[in-house]
């Protein structure tokens, strides 16, 4: 059982103001079946909720003028996360504030859905070299589970049922037969917009359609709390990930349909450590994700200025255009210290592919060397270790305030 003390501690840690190390979220072990747990389950009464902060994605800016204007001044959101696991499955609940219910409607080109996603790392043996937070990176795959609130969606590549794809006005049916036809068509739509993906970075994300992973996601709006509650249940081990470990990295993202949220217009967390209660190991991961480097942010800021980072990166609105390099405006919110340091020392280790290279052809974020992506950023491994740590400490302060 998690004690009050550790709960409080993890709460403080999530806000990142202590040097000590405890997992951000603790998954309690239960004996019940967890394969299809939803928000309605009584099991959640046992669970401990820990805060997880979700920051607006600003690394790349999407090309939707209206949506960009709506999302220009987003603040971070505070979500509460709990987890349970048993021998086979692990289940998460995320509760996040959202004042409006937005459903992707069946007859609109401009309605967008609220939704959430949970991301797992394919390999987390080196906690300082986790997959890139934005849907993984080359050679470092992630699995994502997405649940959106949508009206019925009719998949085009379903089972080849052409007869029910014709317009009702073009059938030769009348009266009862037409009603039966309409009913059959309606039954072919799915309002459960649940998807699982495997991904090695932006744009490589591919839906898993062969049933090789098991997951079960549900979403539910709490009118009184003006919050969504999403649950995701998945197997501890499948073809893509093996979560049988003392601690695992998990990341969360939420979308706000009111602000035209979809794809990159989202709020996301950094990799969050989840301790599987009673399982051995995981200390290194927890330490890596929940310990702040002992750098001096002030000195780091000076070093960032001295090394000309703003020539390519946007730290404030007035800096280089967003498309020159990944914007760092919220990098402290959704990056781990390990990632920041790795990117500083080995820029090509985890590349943010960013835009389609043709979208901003004058500013490629990487070059291709025999098919391998090589970052266009200079390697800063020549800096002394103190300066490196100072810069990382400064970058960790770059994040929007919490709403």
């Amino acid at each position, binding site marked *: 059982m998690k004690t009050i003390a550790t709960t409080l501690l993890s709460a403080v840690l999530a806000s990142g103001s202590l040097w000590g190390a405890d997992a951000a979220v603790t998954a309690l072990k239960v004996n019940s079946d967890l394969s299809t747990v939803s928000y309605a389950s009584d099991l959640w009464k046992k669970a401990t909720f820990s805060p997880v902060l979700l920051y607006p994605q600003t690394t790349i800016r999407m090309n939707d003028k209206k949506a960009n204007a709506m999302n220009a001044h987003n603040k971070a959101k505070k979500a509460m996360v709990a987890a349970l696991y048993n021998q086979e499955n692990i289940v998460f609940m995320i509760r996040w504030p959202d004042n409006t219910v937005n459903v992707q409607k069946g007859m609109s080109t*401009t309605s967008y859905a609220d939704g959430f996603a949970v991301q797992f790392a394919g390999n987390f043996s080196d906690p300082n070299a986790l997959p890139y937070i934005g849907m993984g990176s080359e050679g470092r795959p992630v699995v994502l589970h997405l649940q959106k609130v949508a009206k019925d969606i009719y998949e085009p590549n379903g089972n080849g049922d052409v007869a029910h794809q014709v317009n009702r006005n073009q059938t030769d049916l009348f009266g009862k037969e037409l009603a039966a036809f309409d009913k059959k068509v309606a039954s072919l739509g799915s309002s459960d917009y649940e998807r699982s993906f495997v991904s090695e970075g932006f744009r490589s994300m591919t839906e898993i359609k062969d049933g090789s992973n098991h997951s079960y996601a549900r979403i539910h709006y709490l009118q009184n709390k003006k919050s969504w509650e999403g649950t995701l249940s998945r197997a501890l081990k499948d073809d893509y990930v093996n979560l049988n470990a003392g601690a695992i990295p998990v990341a969360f993202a939420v979308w706000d349909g009111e602000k035209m949220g979809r*794809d990159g217009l989202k709020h996301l967390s950094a990799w969050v450590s989840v301790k599987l209660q009673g399982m051995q190991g995981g200390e290194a991961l927890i330490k890596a994700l929940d310990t702040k480097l002992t750098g001096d942010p002030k000195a780091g800021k000076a070093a960032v200025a001295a090394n000309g980072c703003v020539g390519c990166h946007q730290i404030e609105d007035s800096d280089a255009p967003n498309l020159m390099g990944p914007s760092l405006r919220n990098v402290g919110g959704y990056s781990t210290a390990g990632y920041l340091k790795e990117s500083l020392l080995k820029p090509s280790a985890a590349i943010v592919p960013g835009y389609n290279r043709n979208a901003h052809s004058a500013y490629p974020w990487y070059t291709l060397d025999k098919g391998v992506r090589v970052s266009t950023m200079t390697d800063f491994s020549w800096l002394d270790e103190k300066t490196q740590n100072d810069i990382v400490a400064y970058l960790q302060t770059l994040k929007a305030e919490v709403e």
Partner: protein
Amino acid sequence: MSKRQLAMVMDLNKCIGCQTCTVACKTQWTNRNGREYMYWNNVETYPGTGYPKNWMDLGGGFDAAGDLQPGVIPNLEADYGVPWDYNYDALAGGASFEPNVEPTWGPNWDEDEGDGVFPQDNYFFYLPRICNHCTNPGCLSACPRDAIFKREEDGVVLVDLDRCQGYRYCIAGCPYKKIYFNPKISKSEKCILCFPRVEQGLPPACAQQCVGRIRFVGFLDDEESQVYKLVHKYKVALGLRSDYGTQPNVYYVPPTESPVKFDANGKIIEGSDRIPVEELEKLFGPEVHDAIATLKAEMKKRKETGESELMDLLIAYQHADMFRLDNTYYQNVAKEKGLNPLAPVDTRYIAGKYTKTAHRINFTHDAAAAAGGHH
């Protein structure tokens, strides 16, 4: 850039706005399953709001530096128009004839209005539009999922429906707003240049059905094709809004023939032209002046001497000459790839570029072949 590029030329002097192309396309591709509101081919009145409403003001495309510009996604009700239907069934029961939704906007809402003052200088012409199958497509560059691709074989731009997740950035990125969101399946869809027809040697439905024979189709690198002659030899066919930087592959012969204007007293203004050349320059770029000069000169030559290859070409005597589609080429591509010659030469639009084999839904003819071929 693809290895070869299919292109279409539309002769605006001959478009009568009959919408036969629109109907051919609609019945072939977009009359069901969430595409009801879409017009992959539309014919709008210029000047006018166009379809979707004010599409030229909705952003997208590239600036001079080659950067993709942000854009706006049109609204179904306000900008495209909800397709309405009538209560035919209820008429027998004595009901009055009513639309099922209150029509507030639709394509061609301002048909034939044009601009200017009647009868002095009013004018309009028709502008048929399909996807431009651009060499540098804005939709493709905008897609965060690499779900849009340009076929190597002929430059046709297609959406890989397996990869598309319905984010709609492609719509913002396309300056022509010729890619549409299908809300029923939550994916983007667009004109496919009738590639299944083209691969079998048939022109796109819109071109085949055109009663004015305004549409020429062929490969831009085929010097025998009329498309090549109009675009490269005579340079009388120009891209629409090339300033958007997407390098469109649908070309237009600008409208050169229009009646003279009248003055306030109803007298003919000699040598005047109702269609302001500035408007044509806005649509087709500064090259439009040379194109008009060539067209006028060739017309004069034809009148005087009876000879003009260009005029003969624009008269469009034979479909066989207007469409050079080279289905032998596609059959050779299929052969090289070891595909069934009746199957499409590129299956990425269903299979997915990064989709692992295990995740693919098999749409090839393999099953039929394994069962002994014909059934």
